[in-house]
C-alpha cells in the first residue's frame, strides 16, 4: 500500500516526517540519547507518522470504494437498460401474439355468430311451421275451448294453443309465446322437450290439477307431455358424435335457450346491484348500506329460525314485514327523503305490462332498490339455508320452500301482478346447474363450474360438502315446484319439476355425474307422494325411470348410484313404483 500512497493529497508531509524519524537517532547528541524530551519527541514523531499513514490509507480506501461503487452502478444501469430493452421486445412480441389471438377469436366469434343466426333462422322457420300447424289444430278444436281458461293467471304465460286461438282475448303480449317456442321438436334431443309441453301445462296446472280435469281440451294436453318424455326417458338418447366434444355447452336447447341466457344475465346484474347497495369497506357508509346490512341479517336470522313441524307463522310474518317495509324505505339523497328506485327489468325474464284494473300495487316501471336488493339477499339466504340443512334432513326443505313462496307469491310483493321469482331462479341456476340441464365432468375445473361446485379461497370445496349442498338444493327445488294454493298462483309450478327431472334423465350415460345422481335423489326423496298427486300414473312411470332404469344404466354401481337404487327399492315397497 505504501508504494501507492503518493496519490493522496495529504501524503507530502508523510515522507518528510518519516525521514525525520529515521534520522532522529543519528541527529541527537549522544549524551542526550536517553533524555525524556528526545524520547517524547521520537514517540510523537512516530505517532504522527503512523497517524498520517493511517489517514492517507483511509482516504485511499474510501476513494477506491467510491470508484468501485461508481463502476458497479454503471454496470447495473447498463444491465437494467438492457433488461428493459429485452422486456420491451417481449411485450411487443406478446402484443403481436395477442393481436393475432384476438383476430382469431374475433373470426371465431363471427363464425359462431353467423352460425347462431343461421340456427335461429332455422328455429324460427320451424317455429312458424309448428305455429301454423298448431293454429290449424286449434281451429279444429276451437268450439271446445271455454273462455275462462284465459282468465285466471294474469302472470304466467298462456298456453301456446290458447295464445294462437284467442289472441284477441288473451292480452298477454307476444313475448309470452316467444319465451317458449325455442323448443318444438326438431333435433335428437327432442326428449328434453318436456319443458315445452310443460310450459303449456303450466297454465293448465296452476288451476286445480292436471289429471282430474278430463273434459277440457287443455287437460288433454296435460298427460301428453309426460308420455312423450317417458317414452324417451328409459332410452337415453344416443348423443350425436359432435356433442362429446363440448359436453358443457352443446347439451340442449335448455342450456343454450334464451331463458337460460337471461337467467345468467339476471344473476350477474344482481351481483352488481348488491355491490352498489353494499359496497365493501368501512369507509363506504351510507344509510342505505346500514339498513341493507341490518335487514339482510334479519332475513338470515329468520330463515335460521324455520323449524320442521311448526307453522312458522312468526317467521313468515317477519320476512313479509321486512320486504314490505323495503317498499317504502326512504332515504335523504339531496332533495329530501324519497324512496330510491330502480328499473327492475334487468332482474326478470320478461317485463309485464302495467295492470289496468287499478288494484295492483307496484304498477310503475320502477321498484325500490332496497326491495330488489333484499329479494336477492333473500334468494341467496334461502339457498344457503337449504344447502346447510336440507341434505341432512330433507323435511327441512319444506319450510324453506314455503318461506320462498310466502314472499315471491305475496300479492303486495308482485310487480304489475307478476312474481319476482326470477331472482331466485337465477340464483338456483347458478348454484345447481344440473336442475337446468347443465352437465359437466366432476374431474375437470370447467365441469365443476358448470355443475355449481363451490370454490372457497380458490379451492374446490370437498366432495361431501358439495354433494350435501346439491342434495339440499335439490330438495328445496322440489319443495318450491311441487306446491299448489287455493287462492294464489304458484309462480314456479310443477312442470318445472318435471322439466328438471327430464333434464337429468335424458343425460346420456357418459355425461352423467355423481352430482346429477345426488340431485335426482334429492328431488325425489320425500316428494314421491306429492309428485304423484300432480302427475298421477305418469309420476309412477317417471319414478320407475328415475329410480330403476336410470341407475341401472349407470357405468358403474358407485355409492351415488346405489343410493338411488336403494331409494327405488323403498319407493317400490311404499307403492310409488308399479310392481313388476
Amino acid at each position, binding site marked *: 500500500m505504501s508504494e501507492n500512497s503518493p496519490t493522496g493529497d495529504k501524503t507530502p508531509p508523510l515522507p518528510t516526517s518519516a525521514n525525520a524519524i529515521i534520522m532522529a537517532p543519528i541527529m541527537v547528541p549522544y549524551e542526550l540519547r536517553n533524555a525524556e524530551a528526545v524520547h517524547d519527541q521520537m514517540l510523537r514523531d512516530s505517532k504522527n507518522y503512523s497517524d498520517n499513514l493511517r489517514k492517507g490509507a483511509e482516504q485511499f480506501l474510501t476513494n477506491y470504494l467510491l470508484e468501485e461503487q461508481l463502476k458497479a452502478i454503471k454496470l447495473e444501469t447498463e444491465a437494467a437498460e438492457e433488461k428493459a430493452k429485452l422486456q420491451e421486445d417481449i411485450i411487443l412480441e406478446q402484443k403481436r401474439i395477442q393481436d393475432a389471438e384476438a383476430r382469431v377469436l374475433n373470426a371465431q366469434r363471427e363464425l359462431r355468430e353467423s352460425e347462431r343466426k343461421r340456427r335461429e333462422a332455422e328455429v324460427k322457420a320451424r317455429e312458424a311451421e309448428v305455429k301454423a300447424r298448431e293454429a290449424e289444430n286449434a281451429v279444429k278444436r276451437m268450439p271446445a275451448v271455454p273462455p275462462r281458461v284465459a282468465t285466471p293467471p294474469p302472470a304466467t304465460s298462456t298456453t301456446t294453443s290458447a295464445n294462437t286461438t284467442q289472441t284477441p282475448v288473451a292480452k298477454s303480449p307476444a313475448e309470452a309465446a316467444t319465451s317458449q317456442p325455442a323448443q318444438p321438436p326438431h333435433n335428437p334431443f327432442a326428449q328434453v322437450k318436456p319443458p315445452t309441453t310443460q310450459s303449456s301445462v303450466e297454465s293448465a296446472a296452476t288451476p286445480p290439477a292436471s289429471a282430474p280435469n278430463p273434459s277440457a281440451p287443455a287437460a288433454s294436453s296435460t298427460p301428453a307431455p309426460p308420455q312423450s318424455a317417458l317414452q324417451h326417458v328409459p332410452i337415453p338418447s344416443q348423443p350425436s358424435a359432435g356433442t362429446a366434444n363440448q359436453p358443457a355447452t352443446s347439451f340442449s336447447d335448455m342450456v343454450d335457450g334464451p331463458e337460460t341466457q337471461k337467467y345468467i344475465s339476471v344473476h350477474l346484474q344482481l351481483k352488481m346491484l348488491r355491490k352498489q347497495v353494499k359496497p365493501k369497506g368501512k369507509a363506504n357508509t351510507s344509510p342505505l348500506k346500514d339498513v341493507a346490512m341490518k335487514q339482510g341479517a334479519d332475513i338470515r336470522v329468520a330463515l335460521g329460525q324455520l323449524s320442521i313441524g*311448526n307453522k312458522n307463522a312468526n317467521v313468515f310474518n317477519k320476512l313479509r314485514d321486512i320486504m314490505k317495509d323495503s317498499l317504502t324505505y326512504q332515504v335523504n339523497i339531496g332533495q329530501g327523503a324519497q324512496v330510491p328506485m330502480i328499473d327492475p327489468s334487468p332482474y326478470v325474464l320478461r317485463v309485464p305490462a302495467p295492470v289496468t284494473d287499478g288494484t295492483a300495487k307496484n304498477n310503475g316501471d320502477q321498484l325500490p332498490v332496497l326491495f330488489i336488493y333484499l329479494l336477492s339477499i333473500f334468494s341467496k339466504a334461502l339457498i*344457503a339455508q337449504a344447502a346447510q340443512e336440507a341434505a341432512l334432513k330433507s323435511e327441512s326443505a319444506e319450510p324453506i320452500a314455503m318461506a320462498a313462496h310466502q314472499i315471491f307469491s305475496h300479492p303486495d310483493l308482485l310487480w304489475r301482478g307478476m312474481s319476482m321469482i326470477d331472482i331466485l331462479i337465477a340464483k338456483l341456476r347458478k348454484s345447481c346447474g344440473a336442475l337446468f340441464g347443465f*352437465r359437466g365432468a366432476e*374431474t375437470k375445473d370447467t365441469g365443476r363450474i358448470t355443475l355449481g361446485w363451490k370454490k372457497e379461497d380458490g379451492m374446490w370445496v*370437498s366432495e361431501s*360438502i358439495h354433494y350435501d349442498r346439491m342434495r339440499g338444493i335439490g330438495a328445496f327445488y322440489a319443495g318450491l315446484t311441487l306446491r299448489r294454493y287455493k287462492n294464489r298462483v304458484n309462480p314456479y309450478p310443477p312442470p318445472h319439476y318435471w322439466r328438471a327431472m327430464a333434464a337429468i334423465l335424458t343425460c346420456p350415460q*357418459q355425461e352423467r355425474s355423481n352430482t346429477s345422481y345426488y340431485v335426482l335423489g334429492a328431488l325425489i326423496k320425500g316428494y314421491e307422494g306429492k309428485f304423484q298427486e300432480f302427475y298421477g300414473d305418469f309420476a309412477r312411470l317417471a319414478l320407475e325411470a328415475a329410480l330403476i332404469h336410470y341407475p341401472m344404466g349407470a357405468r358403474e354401481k358407485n*355409492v351415488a348410484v346405489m343410493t338411488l337404487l336403494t331409494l327405488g327399492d323403498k319407493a317400490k315397497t311404499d307403492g310409488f313404483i308399479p310392481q313388476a
Partner: protein
Amino acid sequence: MGSKPLDAASSIFTPGAAGSSTSWGDEMASPTVANPNQNPLDQAQVDGSAGENSSGLHDGSYDVEVKLSDLQADSANPLFSVQSFEELGINPEIMKALYAMNFRKPSKIQEKALPLLLANPPQNMIAQSQSGTGKTAAFVITILSRLDYTRPKQPQALVLAPARELARQIEDVVRLVGQFVQGLTIQAAVPGAVERNARVESMVIVGTPGTAMDLIKRRQLDGSALKVLCLDEADVMLDTQGLGDQCMRIKAMVPRVQQVLLFSATFPDAVMGFANQFCPNANEIKLRRDELTVSGITQMYMDCEGDEGKYDVLAALYGLLTVGSSIIFCKRKDTASGIADRLRKAGHEVLAVHSAFDGAERDEIVRKFRDGEGKVLITTNVLARGIDVSTVSMVINYDIPMKGRNDSEPDPETYLHRIGRTGRFGRVGVSISFVFDRSSYQALLQIAQHFGIDLVRLDKDDWEQTETTVKRVIRSSRAGTNLKA
C-alpha cells in the same frame, strides 16, 4: 407397513403387544382388504374422489383426465380412506342401510377398526377417533354382524353409554343400520324404559350402566348369552366413580362375553391403565393429542363486555351466518333458562335441557331437537358428549368448560366433546367461545395450548369486520383441495 396386506386373520395389531397401538399421523394408507387382484390405491390414483365414486365423464379423448384430490383422499385427514364399505365385506342388508343413510365411504376409524372388529375369533378393541368420524356406526355394524338371528329373544349384545340421551341415540343408530336386517330386535335399558318385572327380550340392549346393572341383578335381563359388551364414551364411563364401578360389576356378571369394545374421542392417560384392565389384550387405535380436533370445525372466540354482554353478542351471531341448528353450552341451569327466554322472545324455537328435567322430558326435548322442531338447544354439560345431530352447524361455549374443585381448572376434554357436536363426518361447523374476563380468557388459552390449536379472535365492536373474519375463516375451513393434474 403400508404395503403389507392386512386381513382380519393376519392382523398386524398384535393384541396386547407393546407396539400394538397405532397413531393416525404416521400411518400410510394400508390396504386393509385381502384382495390381491384389486389394489384400492390404484383406483384412488385414477380418480382420487374415490375408486367407486368416479363421475360420469370419463371420455378421455378430448381432455386429460385429472386426479381428484379430496378430503377423503388426504391421508392426514381422519376421514381418509382408500376403501369402500363394499370392500370391507359387510353384510348386504347392512350395506343397503348405509346407502339409505347416505354414507359414502368409510372413515379412517371404520376402515381400520372394522376388519379387526369383524375378525374371528372376536378380539377386544380400544379405539379412539375424533368426534364425528363414525365410531358409533363402526361398533353397531360389528354388533349386527355378530348376532345369531335364530334367537330373537336372547340378549346377545350390550351397549353402555354415560347418559340416557346418548343411549337413546345409539338405539336409533342400531335401528337405522339394522332397518333392512330381518328379525332384529332392539331395546333400551335407561331409567324408566323397562317396566318392573318385565323381561328384557331383545337381541341388542342399549342402556346406561345403572339401569343395565339393576336389570341383570334382578334377572330381568339374561346376560348368559351376551357376546359383545361395548362402552361408548369409555373414558368417562371408566373414570367417573359410580359409572366405573357399575361397569365393572356388569362385566363380572356376564362372563361369556367374547368381545369387549371401548370407544371414545378422548382417552386421557390416567384412564388408559384402567381401560387395559377392563378390556385386556385389546387391539388399540389411538390418536396423538394434537390430532384430536377435526379441521372442519372452525374455532373462534369473542371477547364480550361482562357477563351480560354475552347475550347481545349471542343474538347478533345468528344474523351473521347461515345457521342450521345450534347448541349453546352454559354452566348453570339458571343461565340456561335465562338465555332460553330471551332467545324465544327474539323468535327462536328454543329447547333447553339440563339435569333438572326428568328422563322422559329429556328424551322428548332431544327428539324435538333432532327432528328439527326446535333449532336452538341450550344445555349444560349433560349433552356435551356423543350427541349426534348432523344439522348442528354452530356450537357456542357461553361459559368456558371448567372442572376440578370449585371449577378452578379448565376442562379440555369437555371442550373437545362440546365443539365436536358440530362438523360431523366431514361437514363444516363453527364453534365460538365467549370470554369476558381474565380468568375465562386464561382458561380458554390453556385449553387452546393443550391441543395446540389457534383460536380466531372476533371483534364485537366492529360487526362488519367480524362478518368478514367469520366468512373468511369458514371459507378456509371449507376449502378443500384443487384438482391436480
